[in-house]
C-alpha cells in the first residue's frame, strides 16, 4: 500500500517536471522566434532609410544635420548586439526619423511627392509591425519569466538552466504605434 502511494507521488512529480520542462522549451523557442520577427522588421526599416534620405535630399538639400543624425543612428543600430543594445539603438532611429518627418513638413513639394508618400506608408507599416512584434515578444517573455521565477517551476528552470530573458523596452513616448490618419 505505502509503496503504491510513494510510487504514485513519484509519478506525479516526474510528470510535472516533464510538463514544465516542455513548457519552458516551447516558450524559449517562441521567444527566439519572436525575436527574429522583431529583427526582420528592424532590418526592413534600416533598409528603407537610405532610400528615404535620398528622396528627402531631392527636395531639402541643406538639412544636413538631420541626414547625419539618421545615418549615424542607422550605423549604430547595425553594430548593436543583444536585446538591450538593439532596443537602445532602434530608439535612436525612431526619434531621428521623427525629426526627419517633422522637417519634411516644411517642404510641401516633398510631402506631395508620390515616392515620399509611399515611403511614409511603408515606414509607418514597418513601425506598426515592430510594435506588434515587440508586443508578442514581451508577452512571451512575461510568460516565460513567470515560469522561471515562480515556485515550484523555478526549481526546474534552475536545474535545467533556463535563465530569465530581458524585455525589449522602448522609451515611454514610443509605446503606441505611430498614428497615421488618412
Amino acid at each position: 500500500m505505502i509503496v503504491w502511494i510513494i510510487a504514485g507521488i513519484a509519478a506525479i512529480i516526474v510528470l510535472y517536471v516533464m510538463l514544465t520542462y516542455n513548457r519552458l522549451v516551447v516558450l524559449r523557442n517562441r521567444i527566439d522566434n519572436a525575436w527574429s520577427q522583431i529583427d526582420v522588421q528592424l532590418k526592413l526599416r534600416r533598409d528603407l532609410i537610405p532610400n528615404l534620405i535620398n528622396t528627402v535630399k531631392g527636395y531639402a538639400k541643406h538639412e544636413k544635420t538631420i541626414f547625419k543624425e539618421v545615418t549615424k543612428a542607422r550605423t549604430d543600430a547595425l553594430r548593436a548586439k543583444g536585446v538591450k543594445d538593439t532596443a537602445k539603438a532602434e530608439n535612436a532611429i525612431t526619434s531621428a526619423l521623427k525629426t526627419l518627418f517633422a522637417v519634411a513638413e516644411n517642404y510641401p513639394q516633398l510631402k506631395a511627392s508620390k515616392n515620399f508618400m509611399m515611403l511614409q506608408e511603408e515606414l509607418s507599416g514597418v513601425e506598426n509591425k515592430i510594435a506588434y512584434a515587440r508586443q508578442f515578444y514581451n508577452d512571451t517573455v512575461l510568460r516565460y519569466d513567470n515560469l522561471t521565477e515562480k515556485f515550484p517551476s523555478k526549481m526546474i528552470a534552475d536545474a535545467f538552466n533556463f535563465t530569465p530573458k530581458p524585455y525589449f523596452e522602448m522609451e515611454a513616448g514610443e509605446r503606441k504605434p505611430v498614428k497615421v490618419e488618412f
Partner: protein
Amino acid sequence: MGIYEEISANKVKTLLLMSVFFAFVMGIILILLYIFDIWFGLLGVFGIFLVVISIIQYYRGDKLVLKIHKAKLARKDDYPYYINTVEGLAIAAGIPKPKAYVIHENAPNAFATGRDPEHASVAVTTGLLEKMNRKELEGVIAHEMSHIKNYDIRLMTIATALVGVLAMISNVLLRSMFWGGVGGRRKNGNAIVIVLGLLLAILSPFIAKMITLSVSRKREYLADASGAMLTRYPDGLADALEKLGADKTPMKSATTATENLYISNPLPKGFFNSMFSTHPPIKERVARLRAM
C-alpha cells in the same frame, strides 16, 4: 481561462460538434428513411456522401466561400495600408500571415475563413477600407485574426458545410415527395407519420442551424476580447462596430449560408433574422469592449 486554454477547448469543441452533428444528421436520415419506407441501404450512401462532402469542404471550403463573394487577392501595390495592417496583426498574434482578399462592395464588412492558421484567409470589402480609419481597421482585422488564431474558422467552415448538406438532403426528400415517387408507398399508409416526416424534413436545417449558433455567438465575444488584446486598444474595434451597426448599405453577396463568417451580420434585420442571429447584438459587444 487563458487564450491558449480557450484554443485547445475550441479544438475539442469542433470535434464534439462534428460528432454530434454527424449523429444528428444520420438520425434524421434514418427516421426519414423509415417514415418514407425507403431502402435502408441508402443510409450508408448518405453517410459516405456526408463524409466526402465534409472532407471536400474542409480542404476547399475557404476557396469556395471566397469565390461566392467574388473576393480578389489584394496586391500590396494596390492596398499597401490594408496589407501592412494584416501583416502587422499576424505578427502580433504570432501566426503566419493569412492571405488577404478584397471584395468590391460598398457595404463595410469583413470575414476570415480557412481551416487552421497555416491555411487561412481574411477578406474585407472596399467599403470597409473606405469607411474605417486606421485604428478601426486594425480593430476589425484583429478580430478576424483572433478567429484564425482561436480556430474558429475551422469550426465555422465545418458547421457551414454540415448545415449545407442537411439542407440539401431535406430538399431532395421534399422534392421527391411532391413528385409522389417516394411518399405514399408506406404499407400502413399512416398519414400522421407522413406529416411528421414532412415536418422533420422541413425543420431539420433550422435545428442544425441552432446547434451551430449556440457555438458561434460565444466565439464572437471571445474574438472581440482577444482582438482587443492584440491591438491593446479596444476602442478601435468598438468604434468600428458602431460604424458597422449604423451603416445600412446592404451586402449584395451575403447569403444565410455564409453569414456566420462576417464580423457583423450582413443580412437585413427582421424578427426571424434576429432570432436566428449568428452574432450577439452590436450594442452588447460595444459595451463589453468599452468596459475593458
